[in-house]
């Protein structure tokens, strides 16, 4: 029985369930429903971690939104007391290897692949940092940003209720020796300072990441360096992509190429930005968002990126005149120097140019002087600001690279 600290729950699936999982997974890919599934937050991994030994209130927070997993876990436990098996430290796993928490690993069924570094202290750190995200959501709720939140919740819950996933929701499907839980497709660890993004790839799923962002990947995951063009692009599409890549490189602060990660049998890849700072997960559902140059870390799904000129006045701003316009359907991970805060613009809001990470395309923006007249322009130290009009989300970062450089420069010997 688990005691203090982190305990593990190892699910032991019957071969029948394995095959039934495959049975419903295959038709999804064939009928094109897979595209829809690419927006779900969760994938199936035959294991999760709970804090504390209290069966009724297991909280594998680092993997999933608490509510979701709580529901699933509680359902499962209520339905079948003999479900799966609890493993404490040192108890051998089903396949005979040691289940010691210090070198715990995620077992991907049918592959037996080891995913390193998922040890107990890692989980604890992830748990603590997850509290940061929970608090963030709580704040959104309190601050009256219900629309944004409701929209995102809707995404999640629709995913959970996807017909293909219903076997998981249905407690009767969770037989005593089988437990399959819906776990997310990605984990962001070490927020908000030294964020690390871990993405689990579904078979043949492609994750496109900024060049140089990879930290580690499963050995069977292939990496291809590509221009950032849609897969179905013809010659002119490729040419266009080349020009866009050139513009991105020169003006938008992004790298010329992107790396595509994929594998026929799935796998995992870890990504990290260059600077210290946070990583934010964003779901696009046909909507368009704009990000400041350098904010892009990775995306999966059918997303196109192109630079958008910010207007003549943006040329005066030191943060670059181009924004990155992303549109389509899929998931996007953005990064910034500093922590990321989500603000809701209801009407009009002003953000310092250097602290802007991204915003919904539903907002109109103009780049202007910070106010306070000429003295304000020259003496306020704010440089130029972006003024937004309309309804939508704005992401800001709490630190600014150029301010850091200005602070640091006098300290350095000349």
């Amino acid at each position: 029985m688990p005691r203090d600290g982190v305990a593990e729950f190892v699910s032991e699936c019957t071969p029948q369930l394995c095959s039934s999982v495959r049975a419903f997974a295959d038709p999804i890919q064939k009928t094109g429903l897979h595209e829809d599934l690419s927006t779900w937050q969760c994938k199936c991994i035959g294991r999760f971690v709970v804090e504390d030994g209290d069966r009724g209130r297991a909280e594998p927070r680092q993997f999933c939104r608490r509510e979701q997993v709580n529901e699933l876990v509680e359902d499962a436990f209520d339905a079948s007391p003999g479900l799966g098996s609890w493993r404490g430290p040192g108890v051998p796993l089903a396949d005979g290897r040691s289940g010691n928490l210090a070198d715990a690993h995620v077992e991907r069924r049918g592959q037996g692949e080891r995913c390193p570094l998922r040890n107990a202290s890692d989980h604890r750190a992830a748990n603590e940092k997850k509290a940061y995200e929970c608090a963030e959501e709580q704040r959104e709720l309190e601050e009256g940003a219900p629309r944004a939140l409701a929209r995102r919740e809707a995404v999640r819950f629709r995913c959970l209720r996807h017909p293909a996933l219903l076997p998981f929701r249905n407690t009767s499907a969770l037989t005593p020796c089988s437990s399959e839980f819906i776990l997310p497709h990605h984990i962001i660890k070490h927020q908000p300072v030294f964020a690390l993004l871990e993405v689990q790839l579904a078979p043949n799923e492609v994750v496109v990441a900024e060049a140089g962002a990879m930290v580690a990947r499963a050995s069977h995951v292939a990496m291809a360096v590509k221009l950032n063009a849609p897969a179905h692009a013809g010659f002119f599409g490729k040419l266009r992509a080349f020009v866009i890549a050139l513009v991105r490189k020169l003006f938008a602060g992004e790298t010329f190429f992107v790396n595509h990660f994929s594998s026929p049998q799935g796998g995992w890849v870890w990504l990290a930005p260059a600077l210290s700072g946070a990583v934010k997960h964003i779901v696009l559902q046909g909507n368009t968002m704009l990000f400041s140059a350098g904010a892009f870390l990775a995306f999966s799904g059918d997303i196109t990126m192109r630079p958008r000129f910010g207007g003549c006045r943006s040329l005066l701003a030191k943060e670059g005149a181009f924004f990155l316009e992303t549109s389509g359907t899929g998931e996007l991970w953005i990064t910034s120097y500093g922590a990321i805060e989500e603000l809701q613009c209801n009407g009009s809001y002003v953000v310092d140019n250097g602290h802007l990470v991204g915003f919904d395309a539903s907002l109109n923006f103009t780049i202007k002087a910070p106010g306070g007249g000429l003295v304000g322009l020259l003496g306020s130290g704010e440089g130029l600001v972006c003024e937004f009009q309309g309804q939508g989300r704005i992401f800001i970062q709490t630190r600014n690279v150029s301010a850091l450089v200005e602070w640091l420069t006098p300290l350095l010997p000349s």
Partner: protein
Amino acid sequence: MQTEIKHNPDFAAVRIQFDNPGEQFVTEAGAMLSRDTALTMTTNLRGGLGAALKRKLLGGESLFQNTFTATAAGQTLWVAPAPEGAIECVDLEPGQNLFLQSGAYLCSTTGIQLDTKFQGGKGFFSGEGLFLLRVHGQGRIWFCTYGAIHAVDLGAHYQGYICDTGHMVAFTQGLSYTVNKVGGLKSLFLSGEGLVCTFKGQGRLWMQTRDPSGLAAFLQPFRPVKSRQT
């Protein structure tokens, strides 16, 4: 006015929400992250040119300060400093003084005044500049550090306290300090500690867990070298 410090201790920022129109908030130049458009911002030399120049030249602060005035209830303002680190807030009553290392001031309510205090020769040797910022008046002041904040109450548990000059950020008025060598000449040059501040008295001392000059010394070898012109 409701205020909240978020993301301590690494990328701290202050969120201010105004309750009433007409409420004002003062920030260091360049510290604003974002705000409601309807907030009015004025940039001025608070306390006149003389006081502003003194702050700028002697206290290491910006010449101008920005004053934000609410025009309606519920408006918000976000403020953050340049260096990575934490923010601490202190409430001051009339007659109380808070001394800040130069450059540490971030923002305050309007009842707060900034002044400089000559430290004498010890300021020159301590590496903190000749002057400290003296904060007084009534209200609340926020200051920033590089690294996390460690606060110590002197008088109750500690009769004296020694802290590295580069890590000293702020202290209350009951404290006085002298600048000393760590030990003999050998430790001055070899211990890597340089000079230390020895505090006495009763009050609170705030230290930062990182030293900016340590970062600068660390980064220096990584800077690109300009080719020598012949």
